[in-house]
């Protein structure tokens, strides 16, 4: 494989944009959530401050090698997804390294970070971590079912598993978006997005409103900083995945930001409206209505 410095440069630049957009977006969303709850909320630059503080903390402890590697895996998962995700269609260089693999690679690469994180926090030895992971994994299994059905429906529709080709097929006006050409699959996918971004009602994994539990329980300082960095990237990249799949992708950064915002907003919107599920409820929920839509999406294209 020949080394292409220009591509690397563009990719890193893209990563920077995505990171900052992710941080900004999260502060906007938190603000929105606070306003709905009649609170004032954070200042818009709070995520940057948090990040700087965490990276700069002096005391750091480690529970062992795997604990140390956990955040590396986690952010590797986020960055890797970014690397294999075509960002801006129409520009060869903003496609990142997506020529190495297709949609299936993306779907399976999601697990990379998840697994590493699970192992890292597992070594932390905190019971809450393990409980959080077990919940997270449980929930994740069924979240992916409607998503898979939707993706297969798309693969049949567009006759390809290449994300680039799927986006290209949606160009030429918003009436060509999957959202219109395959609404059932889009619904199934958007249900699944709710779980993937783990806002309420699917946020028992981290239970952010109570005492800190969930996988990151034992992580602090730099480690937490890394995890927060990853969260910012990952949210944007996941939204980008849905954008590419259902909403025609993006041909420039403005379109990218607009679309990812609304996709992300969808989960926040649902989150503020609905209370949290217990884990067995959320596991079962994805096998009900979203599953029906997923199945329908395939039947329509069979």
């Amino acid at each position, binding site marked *: *494989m020949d080394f292409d410095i220009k591509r690397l440069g563009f990719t890193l630049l893209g990563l920077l944009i995505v990171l900052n957009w992710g941080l900004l977006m999260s502060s906007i969303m938190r603000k929105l959530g606070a306003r709905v709850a009649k609170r004032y909320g954070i200042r818009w630059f709070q995520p940057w401050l948090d990040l700087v503080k965490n990276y700069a903390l002096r005391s*750091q402890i480690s529970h062992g090698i795997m604990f140390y590697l956990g955040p590396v895996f986690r952010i590797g998962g986020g960055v890797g997804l970014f690397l294999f995700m075509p960002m801006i269609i129409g520009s060869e260089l903003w496609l990142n390294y997506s020529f190495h693999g297709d949609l299936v690679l993306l779907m399976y690469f999601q697990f990379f970070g998840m697994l590493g994180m699970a192992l890292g926090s597992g070594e932390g*030895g905190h019971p809450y971590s393990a409980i959080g992971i077990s919940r997270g994994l449980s929930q994740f*299994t069924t979240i992916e079912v409607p998503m*898979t059905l939707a993706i297969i429906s798309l693969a049949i529709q567009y006759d390809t598993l*290449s994300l680039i080709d799927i986006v290209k097929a949606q160009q030429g006006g918003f009436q060509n978006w999957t959202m219109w050409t395959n609404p059932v699959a889009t619904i199934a996918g958007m249900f699944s997005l709710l779980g993937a971004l783990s806002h309420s009602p699917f946020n028992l994994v981290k239970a952010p409103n109570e005492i800190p539990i969930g996988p990151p329980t034992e992580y602090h*300082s730099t480690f937490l900083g890394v995890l927060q960095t990853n969260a910012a990237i990952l949210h944007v990249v996941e939204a980008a995945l849905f954008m590419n799949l259902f909403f025609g992708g993006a041909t420039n950064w403005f379109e990218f930001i607009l679309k990812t915002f609304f996709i992300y907003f969808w989960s926040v919107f649902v989150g503020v409206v609905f209370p949290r599920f217990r*884990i067995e409820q959320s596991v079962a929920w994805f096998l009900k209505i979203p599953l029906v839509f*997923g199945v329908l999406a395939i039947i329509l294209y069979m």
Partner: protein
Amino acid sequence: MISPIHIISIGLGTAFALGFLNKKSNGLAVSLMLVAIALMAAVSSSWFIKLYQGAEAIEVYTAGFKPPYSINLRMGLNEALLSSLINLAGFLGGLYMFKNLKNTGKHAIMVFLVFVMGLNVIILTRDAFNLFVFMEVVSIATAGLIILIQDGKSIQAGFKYMIATGIIAGIFLLGIIFAYYFSGSLNIDDISNSNLLAFKGGSVAVLMIIVSVVLELKPFPANGWALDVYEASDPGIAALISAASATAMYFVLFKLMPIADLQWYKIISTAGLITFVGSNLFGLKQTGARRLLGYSSIGQLGLLMTILGLKPFLGDKFEYIAITILISHYLAKAGLFWIAGLLKKDKLKDWALLRKKPLFLVLFGTFVFSLIGFPPFPSFFGKWELIMSLSQQGLYFTLAMILTGSFLEGIYLFRWLGYAIKMESNESWTFKLEWNKVIPPVLFGILVYLAGYYSSTFAENFNGLYFIALAFILIIYLLDFLPAAVKNILSILSLALVSWYMLPGLYSEDMLRFIFTLIFLVGGILTFIAGFAYKGKREGFYPVALLMYAGLAIIIRASTTLEFFFGWELMTAGSYFLIIRGKKSMAHGLSYMLFSMAGAYAILAAFGLSFAETASIQLSSLAAVGGNITVIFSLLAIGFMTKTASLGLHIWLPGAHAEAESDVSPMVSAILLKAGVFGLMILMIAMGNNPEATRVAYVLGWLGALTALVGNLAAAFQEDAKRLLAYSSISQLGYILFALAMMSHLGWMTAMVYSINHFLYKSILFLTIGAVVLKVGTHYMYKMGGLIKNMPLAFIAVLIGIIALAGVPPLSGFAGKWLFYNAVIDKHWYFQGVIVFFSGIIAFLYLFKLIYSVFLGQLKDNLRHVKDISIWFAIPIYILIIGLMIFSAKPDLVLKPLGEMISVWYPNAGLSWEGGLATAPYGYWNGTGVMITIGIMFMALLGWLLLLSSKAVKVGQFNIVYSAEAPQRPETTHVSYNIYAGYNKALGWMVAPKITEFWDTMSDWAHSLAEYGRRLYSGNGQVYTTYVLAYIIAFYLIMIF
């Protein structure tokens, strides 16, 4: 040559002469008796040798008259063989009972001699009345021998025997007289030439003659008296009754059948079939060894009767089939009764005692396997020919019933064998061995192997070279006294030699077989390396492990269905012993064996059906099957799926794999299961193009998908690490079944990639976990925890194993997932595909649980000083990891040749390659590129973190943020037990043990039926007599209608 009449004169003369001996010289009397029997044996066997070399059969006439005015004897090949067998059994039986006979006195010795002599005459004579006389002589002698042990039971049994045989003999005599009346001769040949059935009333003569001989063969249900005799008489006598008397009576029926017609053959075969199935069914409920052997003897006689009844259909195969099965029965049953006599314990569960004398355990196993018809024993080849001929004749019902009966027999015999191998035995005493009681069973044990080899030489297209492997295994068995390491080296060398011999040729000719040979044999070598970790002798391990590998190698080499089946059964036998070696494996070994047997019979039946259609046993001829393809395809698929443990046929697997020894688990999981995959591939290559087969394959696809789902879900709820891996294997094999059933280029590619991967990571995981279990002494994950610090080698191995299994890029597991997606969309199997995908994600649950509960979390106090896994386990593990990493980094190395191989069968819709980039009909993937990208990225991020957190301090175990408490007990802090409680609440209903319940219910029904049915044998001698008469009347009614 000495005239055969001297067999009689020696016997009678010595018996008379014994009367002149002093009362005190009983020892001399027994010795003289043995000499006499030896002389008789010498005469008959010298005739056998001569006749076998091609001499003409001779007829001997008494008093110089011709029949019908004289008695005549015939010495033909059959007669010589059978009388040699009887004299051999008589001699060894006499030797075995030396003390009994000596203590009982001269009369008993004379009776014994007359018994043997009488049986000889029954074989040799051609005169019907003479036959009657000597049947009565033998019957009286038997009644005398039954009460050698003078306890109440034997006296009762003897009386029942006398009444029943008295009546039977009377009917026989009546029949003979009528036959004489109509034919004017007593010579059997004259009678049969005179065509009795043509006379009015002649058919009654035939009825009476045939029915009484049939009754002597103890048909169900008129056989209560015989069961009692088997149970109550001295085992030495029971051995002779079962081996020698039954042989003689069977030959009588054979001799007399020519007087009857085809109708009678059918009746006989039906009567035999009912007996075979019925008595094996009742055998299920037996708890006493000797009565069980009685049921088994009667069952075998029923089978032989069926074969005789089928003679018109079997043609020139008849003698081969009858003799092989007869000899297996003769050797095995005598041997088993003799062992029963040695052990002096009648309860089946007490046979655990037997393992104190390993030689006898081996003999016991030998006899059981030869009764069931496993290779390399004669009955294997006999049953094979029988099934082939039956299906050629379209006698499907008979075929099914014979297999059913054999299966029922397998249930109780293998349960019994399991007791002997594994039943807990806390008795401190042992049993005594006397040389005269040891020689007979040992000799018969050797003979049954020799007979097996000899039988195989008659089988068409059978490569006798396979016996070299068996001979090698025998040598390893004889070297069992050596330390394990030596035997381990020998075993590795032997597998290496076979690989060396097989692999290069296959590489250029047959990629499919090459890959499976790699998995079987190289995998075998690797798992054997782990065996160095075991100290001591490891008795019995190496012969059976090699037996399994020999079977696997033969499956690969096989060019005919017979050879394939031969290998398949050897593999089953070997793996059965491997599995049952585990600590609590008695029940698992049995259920493995039963599923395997049922599967093997399905395969056998399918091979038979295919032979019926194509008249060829070449494996390639499967492709020519047209008519019955749905049935054949389904039967074969079911047979192979018992090995791949597909849903419904999987219940044997978790226990068997979980309880097996640490280095056996990978053998039976990563390697053995692939035999089923190989079988399925062979099947689909041969028949896959047929649209009817495609329909079955569609069902298989669904089955595979559901297997994958249920297997993974069940794995997520396990607490036992090895059981978890076992369920995971079930599910992985479900993927493979699914992928194979797609029968497309990509589908098969997926299946092959999964097979290779599963071999790699399941070996890694099972070896590692097995090694960990050896160190920590428990299977339960919640009793472990935090072992990463003590066992970094093991942790890394498991980490790589689970990443690969999960299919997370960049490791090779992803290759399977990626191919899978393309294959599913290409094939339009969306919903099945989604189920498989769903189950693939569920895999994360148990993989996390596995690595977390064992290596992460909190270290337990009792495990603080555990060391890392044995180096002997680490070596094969890391060799496998290297293989896995190469496959991951350069997937094209494997995928390209695979693609070429599969193109032969499925040329369309494959991968196209452009350097490392593979393009499928739907997607694209560059394994090497992904690996490099991720590698660079990971290192960069790691560097970044290292830069930022160089000051990180390593802290102690309980230094965690824990709700204002300082935890100090790992047990309360390590979350592991029932970790997926919520998931269980939501989806646990899917893995409710319904299938196990189903099989349990089936088993209950069979046992209840047996319990209910066997009450027929009320113990009342009069009732038994009634059955005898009713049987005669039933035959009469059948005849007139």
